[in-house]
């Protein structure tokens, strides 16, 4: 039907030995969409996702106890049965990224050889952060190092204070540096490459084109996209759950409001309304302004803690922790013969599945802002820059908290770890420093705004996924997803709280992990073919020039 010259890929009067671009499709963005009531979405991806989400929310709200039991059993089952899968997949993703960086395919440029970068490195990296991981750094920065200090991983008891500190920080950094960014990097790169170089719609299924061929526009593709939608929704809902827990904890700590059920629900409702306003204001008027202001506020908080805390120790520890991270990396990423099941199952396996569940969301975001970079540049920056910032951030908060514990004998933070009140760790930590009320207030505000940007960008991404890759579908659809993200958060808080949220992130992370493994194969095939194509084109051009020269 469609003229191939329309799609920007030449055909017709080419010489016979011209290289053939085998990963080009006649599929047009939005061709399987339906437009009821002036809306515009993909059939059947939208219907399946929307109905499943509505049924899920209704079931969990109707039978919270039953849901809590189910989800409560799901998490330990997944982490014990499939720990090897998550651990191995995480390592494969890192190794694959290193391979892409060093192999010749690393020089392929996203958006074609002439594409120019749309964003500076600075705004690129800050958008990576604000997209979704923000709440995590507020929740875990103090909690995680202190937890690993009290319960050291790898069964390494009886260490010296120095070694204990290093191990705790190395274990924390292990979860937040390199591995998560390698996962996001692969998904982001695959989405960007197949959209901007191959002209396929910006949806997850496009990244599978070399494997499934034209069948990717049928059921195999529907399944992949629905999985991506679920992973995004539940990965995000987990993040939102942390946000609600922590801001409720903070508010009760600061103002003495009871940290009850109703407070958390009210927070989710209020945040959903704020996110709706941000959705209606669009990308530039909403998310961009909020994430930029939040990055500045987070930087101020980090700098303040660095200055009032043990400044010199912290600065030295940034280097030491980086070294310690690489020293412990082989032991921490190995899953064979491990005995520290608490660390490996409750922390590493959970994180890996959470990062995987988050990857379609963060990947879509990275893809949209990374045209004009080469594969090598893209991976190096999107893995190393956030990893470095995380090492600095975690070191500032972790070193401060450890100094409070070892040097001042302060038990405030440690008590929150022992008593399972993780939402209070940050506030007990800040309480030991000057201006505690102000900094705690900033902390709560940061969590709330990260919460709003996550919901807004989540609604945006899920809308694109269910609109067949259209990014200009009516705003009403984003409103729908934004409201349902809030409802999933509420439903899961009712049906078992944080552990249910985590269970669902794990459950969606598992199948999507398989998708990313396939995607890696597919991406490599696509990049290798692209490189061949570019080289053949360059050769043909050189020959043509030579022929021209000879004629002259």
């Amino acid at each position, binding site marked *: 039907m469609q003229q191939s010259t329309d799609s920007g890929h030449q055909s017709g009067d080419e010489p016979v030995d011209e290289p053939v671009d085998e990963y080009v499709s006649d599929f047009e963005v939005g061709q399987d969409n339906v437009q009821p009531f*002036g809306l515009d979405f993909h059939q059947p991806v939208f219907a399946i996702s929307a109905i499943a989400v509505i049924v899920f929310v209704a079931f969990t709200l109707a039978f919270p106890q039953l849901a809590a039991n189910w989800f409560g059993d799901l998490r330990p089952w997944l982490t014990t049965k499939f720990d090897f899968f998550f651990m191995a997949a995480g390592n494969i993703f890192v190794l694959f990224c290193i391979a892409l960086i060093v192999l010749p395919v690393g020089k392929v440029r996203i958006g074609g050889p002439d594409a120019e970068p*749309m964003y500076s490195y600075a705004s690129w990296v800050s958008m990576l952060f604000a997209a979704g991981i923000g709440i995590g750094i507020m929740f875990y920065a103090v909690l995680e190092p202190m937890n690993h200090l009290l319960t050291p991983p790898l069964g390494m008891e009886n260490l010296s204070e120095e070694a204990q500190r290093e191990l705790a920080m190395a274990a924390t950094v292990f979860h937040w540096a390199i591995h998560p960014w390698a996962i996001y990097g692969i998904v982001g790169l695959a989405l960007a490459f197949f959209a901007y170089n191959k*002209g396929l719609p910006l949806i997850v299924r496009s990244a599978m084109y070399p494997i499934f061929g034209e069948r990717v526009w049928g059921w195999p593709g529907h399944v992949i996209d629905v999985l991506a939608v679920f992973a995004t929704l539940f990965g995000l809902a987990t993040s939102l759950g942390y946000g609600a827990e922590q801001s409720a904890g903070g508010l009760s700590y600061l103002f003495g409001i009871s940290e009850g059920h109703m407070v958390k629900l009210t927070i989710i409702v209020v945040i959903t309304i704020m996110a709706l306003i941000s959705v209606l*204001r669009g990308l530039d008027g909403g998310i961009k302004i909020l994430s930029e202001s939040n990055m500045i506020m987070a930087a101020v908080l980090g700098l303040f803690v660095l200055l009032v805390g043990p400044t010199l120790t912290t600065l030295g520890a940034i280097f030491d922790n980086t070294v310690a991270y690489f020293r412990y990396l082989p032991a921490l990423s190995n899953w064979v013969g491990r005995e520290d099941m608490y660390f490996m199952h409750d922390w590493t396996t959970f994180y890996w599945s959470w990062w995987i569940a988050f990857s379609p969301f963060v990947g879509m975001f990275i893809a949209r802002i990374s045209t004009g970079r080469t594969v090598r540049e893209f991976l190096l920056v999107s893995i190393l820059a956030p990893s470095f910032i995380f090492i600095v951030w975690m070191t500032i908060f972790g070193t401060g908290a450890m100094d409070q514990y070892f040097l001042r004998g302060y038990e405030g933070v440690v008590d929150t770890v022992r008593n399972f009140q993780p939402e209070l760790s940050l506030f007990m930590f800040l309480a030991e420093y000057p201006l505690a009320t102000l900094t705690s207030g900033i902390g709560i505000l940061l969590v709330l705004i990260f919460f709003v940007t996550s919901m807004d960008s989540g609604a945006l991404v899920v809308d694109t996924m269910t609109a067949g890759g*259209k990014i200009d579908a009516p*705003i009403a659809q984003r409103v729908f997803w934004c409201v349902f993200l809030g409802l999933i958060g509420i439903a899961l808080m009712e049906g078992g709280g944080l552990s249910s949220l985590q269970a669902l992130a794990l459950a969606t992370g598992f199948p999507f992990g398989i998708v990313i493994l396939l995607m890696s194969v597919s991406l490599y095939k696509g990049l290798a073919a692209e490189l061949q194509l570019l080289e053949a084109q360059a050769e043909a051009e050189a020959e043509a020039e030579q022929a021209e020269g000879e004629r002259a």
Partner: protein
Amino acid sequence: MTDKLYRHIGVPVDMAHREKLGKALTTAMELARCYDARVTLVAVTSPAPGEAAHNPKEFRAKLAAFAAELAEDAGVPVDAQTEVIGDPAADLDKALDRQFHELGVDLVVMASHVPGFREYIFHSNAGFLASHTDLSVFVVRG
């Protein structure tokens, strides 16, 4: 020459739904001929592959071809202007308004559909532009 009522007519174009533009385009061309004015088609796209084109370059080329076609049919000078923005769903109206001001357009002729259910909650593009811009706007229905 100085008393020409309109010199430069701007027409927003939705490249994915060109078939719905017929009446508005005819109106714009008639007016342009009447007042000896020129026409500029303005379209907004995003860097991602969309319904109308696989990339902004292709989009630009398609819009330019469309403008050339119209110019030949109507015998009126028709230019094309493409703006690439990050979030067309939310920022379309603002981007159009900005483009029309930058181009120095003195009349906007745009197609609109009959307001329906959705317009009670979310404004239509023509409705937004007509009530928020200081330019003259001619909304063509049907």
